[in-house]
């Protein structure tokens, strides 16, 4: 059960799938005998398209799949990876689970907090970074590790993280 943030009421009032996304949506639905199975793929397409999943996108997914809106809201809040509010350009997700923690993840996270001036879930004022603690990323042998967006960075320490932050504009 994810500790999902309270649903924001902001974002655009109405959204439609752009042309390229509409093709992806059709292709995703065609993979299943039951359209409802495409709910996670459609939420991913929405997140790729708009950078986050605003309420209007949840309504769009619901209408596309002919599902009640509260069902889609319930699904989107169950999983941790859908951003239900806007995030920074680079999403820093630091693994804090045991293997990474044994190798210094707590210290690394503190370092990032100090460097960026934000805590867990915070976004820097310039909109560049969102920092988040996450659970095991399946990179335990390369701990401490962090995902930036979907990119894995392993065997991190303070200086490697500093160099990485410099490179992420």
């Amino acid at each position: 059960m994810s500790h999902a943030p309270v649903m924001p009421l902001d974002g655009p009032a109405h959204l439609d799938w752009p042309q390229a996304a509409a093709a992806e949506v059709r292709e995703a639905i065609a993979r299943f005998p039951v359209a409802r199975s495409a709910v996670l793929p459609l939420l991913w397409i929405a997140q790729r398209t708009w950078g986050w999943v605003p309420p209007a996108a949840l309504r769009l997914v619901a209408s596309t799949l002919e599902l009640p809106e509260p069902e889609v809201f319930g699904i989107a809040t169950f999983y941790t990876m859908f951003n239900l509010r806007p995030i920074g350009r680079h999403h820093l997700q630091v693994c804090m689970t045991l293997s990474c923690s044994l190798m210094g993840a707590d210290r690394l996270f503190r370092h990032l907090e100090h460097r960026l001036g934000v805590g867990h879930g915070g976004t820097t004022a310039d909109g560049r970074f969102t920092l988040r603690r996450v659970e095991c990323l399946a990179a335990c042998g390369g701990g401490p590790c962090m995902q930036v967006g979907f990119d894995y960075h392993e065997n991190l320490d303070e200086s490697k993280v500093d160099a990485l932050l410099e490179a992420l504009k």
Partner: protein
Amino acid sequence: MSRGPLLFRDIDTPRLAALETYRGLGGYEALAATLGLKSPDECIEIVKASGLRGRGGAGFPCGLKWSFVPKNSPKPRYIVCNADESEPGTFKDRELMEKNPHLLIEGMILAGYAIGSHCGYIYLRGEFEYIQRILDRALAEARSAGLVGADVFGTGYAFELHTHLGAGAYICGEETALLSSLEGYRGQPRLKPPFPAVEGLYACPTVVNNVETLMNVPHILKNGGAWYRQWGTEKSPGTKVLSVSGPVKRPGNYEIPLGLPLRTLIDSPEYCGGMRDGLKVKGVIPGGSSVPLLPASELDTGLDYESMNAVGTFLGSGGVIVIDDHTCMVDALWNITRFYEHESCGKCTPCREGTYWMSEILERLEHGAGRETDVALLEDVADNILGKSFCALGDAAAMPVQGMLKHFRAEFEYHVQHRRCLVNRRRQSLEEVTA
């Protein structure tokens, strides 16, 4: 240099993910030697004879699982690969799929053929988006080569295969929760029975197998069940990929013959090469964070299903987490318990509430605010989760607590009496940073 006898034999071959390279090393030969030449029942018998057990964690015999699919059901059947790899300490499927996607595709086609399925799904955890790209590329190649699609290898057998991306939920590694998620619901578990083999995806007969299990299948069907038994023990035949993490000199994935002593894995230069920075082993979690840990005195135990059971733990997913002598066990257990509190799906009370209360107690202990009754209370909460939760997540949260209290109870009591850790190198580093 080869990193293992079977799944890791060619793993570091450049461009192994390309169809041409994979075929050059004998890839898809098992498919050619099976489709139309062996009956589905023969395939199931061969896998049964190999003794292959599920590599995701439960260790259930694979051939037996396949044989539970009803033969004359009019419904479509599905083969689903559990590529959710979410058990803390486990990172083998990620490397296997990243480097050798065609072996998984070949295993899926063969498993599909054996159970009479014409459609398969690979359920990946959301963080594995880059692996979905690798698999989709490999699938496109396999489709162009006629290995996946309406007429596999010109044999008339039709098989479609799709990848599917989860979105961040440990519970989706539990097979019925995975199926709920794949159907487009919240990833919450369902009661068993009915088991997925009878009523799984869309209430149709479904087999759910782990990545590593499916990758063993082409090797077994090509070379036979007896051949597979050249590795391992009588009850745990074959090889297993173990993911080793923690302060060892060379953490990583190692394919071992089942039965290898845990000490050899940690100390041998062939594997992890011992501990780093002069640290000593305090305890080892042998099968992912869900299983009870072993103290250093049990390091000579063999890494196989039955030897691990004999000392009160499980081989599980093969996620070996090595804990050193400068680590506080209360702190380590608090970390593990927080994970289960975060990942409990909320469906049943013992797990939802119990994981919360165990975290509360451990936080108190770790911060020097433990009460006289806390160690007994912690044990009581764990005992009231084990076997009483809806799915295995509750057991997974309770067993590490029970294992820690069995072997390191004195350290927990020390926290109550002295209001501080016996040792804790991580706390010192934390204090340095926050000073």
